[in-house]
């Protein structure tokens, strides 16, 4: 097992849940704030902007919604764009399922409700590192991050004009830094490094090429498929070294 960036440390389940949530909340509050401001600017009543944070709990989905609705798009095209952006959740939710197969369906459903890019990344990394699954830790992490998201959106929607520029706090980089810190231990083999570079480059190319709603889902499907094909070839070449 190569050295990894450890996401887990011994301690009570709730402390581990809060530990996992902390960097995510640092990012969610200012991003949620930005959403609240944008939503109101785009003609969405403040209360409804908060309801969206509670119901959807999806940064990219909510931003797409606000900008399309504000731009005069209809119900169908707005919802379709949100659905496309969120196709990646299908992949993450499916990727979590082998790790959660021991717990009941109701618990899996409840944990699925708390799935975001960020909670997925921290939970799956911990599971890959051998963390013994503890649903309390996952619930606490998910609800803490959800709460911070709703709080950020609420402040932005109701008192967006009270806060000036938040950029000097540097928190708009928190989520990017978190993903960098989690991507490094994902690169556990040369094959994984290759997949990361390929998928990242494809995602950038698709987004720069205007496919800003499709890029993550399409690049992920392509990257995972390349990983599967290459790992099968590797396995055939040297059966001992199953990746």
């Amino acid at each position, binding site marked *: 097992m190569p050295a*990894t*960036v*450890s*996401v887990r440390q011994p301690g009570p389940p709730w402390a581990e849940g809060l530990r996992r949530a902390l*960097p995510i909340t640092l990012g969610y509050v200012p991003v949620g704030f930005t959403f609240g401001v944008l939503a109101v600017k785009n003609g*969405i*009543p403040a209360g*409804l902007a908060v309801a*969206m944070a509670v*119901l*959807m709990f999806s940064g990219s989905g909510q931003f797409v*919604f606000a900008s399309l609705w504000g731009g005069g798009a209809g*119900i169908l095209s707005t*919802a379709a764009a*949100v*659905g496309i952006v*969120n196709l990646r*959740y*299908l*992949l993450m*939710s*499916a*990727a*979590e*399922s082998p790790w*959660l*197969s021991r717990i009941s*369906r109701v618990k899996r*459903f409840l*944990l*699925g409700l708390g*799935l975001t*890019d960020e909670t997925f990344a921290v939970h799956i*990394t911990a599971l890959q590192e051998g963390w013994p699954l503890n649903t309390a830790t996952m619930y606490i992490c998910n609800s803490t991050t959800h709460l911070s998201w709703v709080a950020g959106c609420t402040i932005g929607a109701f008192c967006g004009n009270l806060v000036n520029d938040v950029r*000097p706090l*540097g928190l708009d*980089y928190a989520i990017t*830094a*978190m993903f*960098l*810190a*989690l*991507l*490094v*231990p*994902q*690169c556990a083999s040369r094959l994984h490094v290759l*997949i*990361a570079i390929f998928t*990242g480059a*494809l*995602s*950038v190319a698709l987004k*720069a090429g205007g496919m800003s709603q499709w890029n993550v889902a399409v*690049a*992920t499907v392509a*990257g*995972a498929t390349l990983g*599967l094909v290459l*790992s099968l070839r590797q396995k055939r070449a040297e059966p001992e070294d199953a990746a």
Partner: protein
Amino acid sequence: MSGLFAWAGEHEALLLCVAAATLVTVLPKVLPVTFLRGDSLPPLLRRWLDFVPVAVMAALVAPDIFIYDGRFDLSTSNLFLMVSIPTFLVAWKTKNYFVTIAVGIGLVILARWAAWAV
């Protein structure tokens, strides 16, 4: 109460749209993990899913770093790219999750404080 109904009537289209957007957000989150039998997936699908974490994290973070102001930018004016190089090195060398995030945020604060880039 009647005020609430009046409000809802006034925002009928928007409420419908929020309901639809909620459905297409929540269903992809819950359907696979709730209904897939994770312990008896076909081995090929299982192996494919094992590559999803590395792929999805790379697909999420790369545009944050390389796309600045809506376009691909490899120049020094791309703050997040400039900060991500040392942050990546810290992640790689220290293997420490919190130190990596703190260094990354710290560098962004410093760069903006020094008015080097936004």
